[in-house]
């Protein structure tokens, strides 16, 4: 057993680091906590975990289908399993195992998609996961979560560990500052977090896309006198319809932002609810269009498609006819 590790709410490291630290904290208290990896302990920041808890990390090798099937078998025998693999491979190559062995068989595996979205940047489309929300949303009995900052990550991992249901958590690689210092702004799986409130436009974002949304909201206020509501909709499924309904009713336009295809993700989840509930204000989905992305770093790709402070400001002004 390793030395006592207390994970802390840090500010400004990669969410993946927080995932690893939180998992260490959980693992030392609960021997049923297991990390299962596909030659991914380095990219999953799990090297320290493996050193401290060698009996609680299981290496599968580069075999994602087997990773998920083995994880499901372990979970069915009572283990609290975190199956860790790059999101691009985990949710595509092992999709049938996720559908059948995890979701359909109700084996409570915690699927951890690392380096998600376009985190791998110029490594290209084989390594991008812009489909994961879409494919997993269509699978029954699957919770989908993209924490935005270090606090959300820590809380999501702790809550997932005690959750006896299949869940997918998606993490990027870049350092993420806290969205708010308001300690009363708590985190609960399935409940979106309102970061700022305003009556002009609602910006609903998820994962690493929340930060540029928040930066855009600050600029909209300082430069244009506009008040935006920004929601970190960390749980994409089940979607917090009550919060969506509330912010839609209290604003004049609604914008969704995600590091995912514009097809099948957070935006379309919001759109279908809003349309079925007679929402008629201006609405836009921001994400990656239906194409293999331009070459670049994660930041360059996000900027290229407008998932940035400037892009979100421009889209907001357009929605408000300003």
């Amino acid at each position: 057993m390793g030395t006592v590790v207390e994970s802390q709410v840090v500010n400004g490291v990669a969410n993946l680091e927080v995932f690893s630290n939180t998992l260490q904290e959980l693992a030392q208290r609960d021997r049923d906590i297991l990390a299962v990896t596909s030659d991914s302990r380095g990219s999953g920041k799990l090297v320290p975990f493996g050193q401290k808890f060698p009996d609680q990390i299981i290496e599968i090798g580069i075999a994602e289908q087997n990773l998920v099937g083995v994880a499901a078998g372990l979970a069915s025998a009572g283990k609290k399993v975190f199956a860790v693999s790059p999101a691009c491979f985990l949710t595509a190559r092992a999709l049938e195992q996720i559908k059948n062995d995890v979701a359909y068989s109700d084996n409570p595996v915690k699927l951890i998609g690392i380096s998600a979205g376009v985190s791998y940047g110029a490594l290209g489309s084989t390594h991008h996961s812009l489909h994961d929300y879409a494919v997993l949303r269509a699978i029954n009995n699957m919770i989908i979560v993209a924490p935005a900052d270090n606090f959300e990550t820590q809380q999501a991992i702790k809550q997932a560990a005690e959750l006896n249901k299949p869940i997918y958590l998606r993490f990027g690689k870049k350092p993420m500052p806290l969205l708010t210092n308001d300690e009363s702004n708590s985190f609960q799986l399935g409940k979106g977090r309102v970061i700022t409130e305003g009556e002009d436009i609602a910006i609903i974002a998820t994962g690493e896309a929340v930060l540029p949304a928040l930066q855009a909201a600050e600029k909209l206020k300082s430069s244009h006198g506009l008040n935006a509501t920004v929601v970190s909709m960390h749980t994409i499924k089940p979607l917090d319809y009550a919060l969506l309904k509330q912010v839609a009713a209290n604003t004049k336009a609604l914008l969704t932002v995600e590091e995912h295809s514009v097809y099948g993700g957070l935006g379309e989840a919001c759109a279908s609810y809003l349309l079925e509930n007679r929402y008629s204000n201006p609405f836009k989905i921001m994400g990656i269009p239906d194409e293999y992305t331009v070459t670049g770093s994660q930041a360059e790709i996000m900027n290229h498609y407008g998932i940035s402070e400037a892009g979100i400001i421009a889209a907001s002004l357009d929605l408000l006819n300003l």
Partner: protein
Amino acid sequence: MTGRELELRSNLYRQKILKYIVGAKAGHTGGSLSCIDILNVLYNYVLNVDPKNFGAADRDRYIQSKGHCVEALFVVLADKGFFPESDLETLCKYKSHYIGHPTRKVHGVEQNTGALGHGLSLSVGTALAAKLDNKPYRVYTLLGDGELPEGSNWEAALTASHYNLDNLCAIIDKNSLQITGSTADVCNTDPIDEKFESFGWEVEHVNGHSISELKQAFDSLPLKKGKPSLIIAHTVKGNGVSFMENQVKWHHGVPDAGQYEEAIKELEQKKAAIL
């Protein structure tokens, strides 16, 4: 159960498989008849499972990777008291829990299967959990020879030997036929034994319709300490009903009334011979 009692059980199970497939107007007849002796020996001789305490942490696990032969599993589970046999009259009927593949909605089923190439990974994970927890149970999984080209099987085979899972026993129902024709013609996986041996498994061949050979093989587990065990059960698709034997069309053929009567008559004659 004595060897003769087990022989009679297999005969009874064959008759019930046919009865419920005819009732459902659907089912995987040939494969259910080829694997039924294996399931008979597992559930009546080998497995430590109790319908009254199926959730017991130390129970043996049976995971049916060749899920399409669910009729064999359901008939055995009903006989073991997991649910009333009359439930099987709803097999594949509107709103029934008894669907055409194993589902946990049916008491006694460990995992939902049906897509091929999944059972071995699930079994590896379960066997690994037993090792981590120092639990005495063993994990058994039944594969069809036709599902061996699924690559996930070979991923799982590697992991099983990497972690020295000698509490894992895979059984291959080698009936040598699949829906398109002979497995050798569709995608030849022979020699299966050499492939698994090279993956670090210990392998034994048995006649999959010989109760005594099956018992003996299961009694020998693990076939080698520190290695996962593979029992290659050589079987005949449609076994027990001569006009179905080795005929691809009975992969999921459903007997008509006359064929059903003829099959039951033959099985009754075989039963009389056992008695």
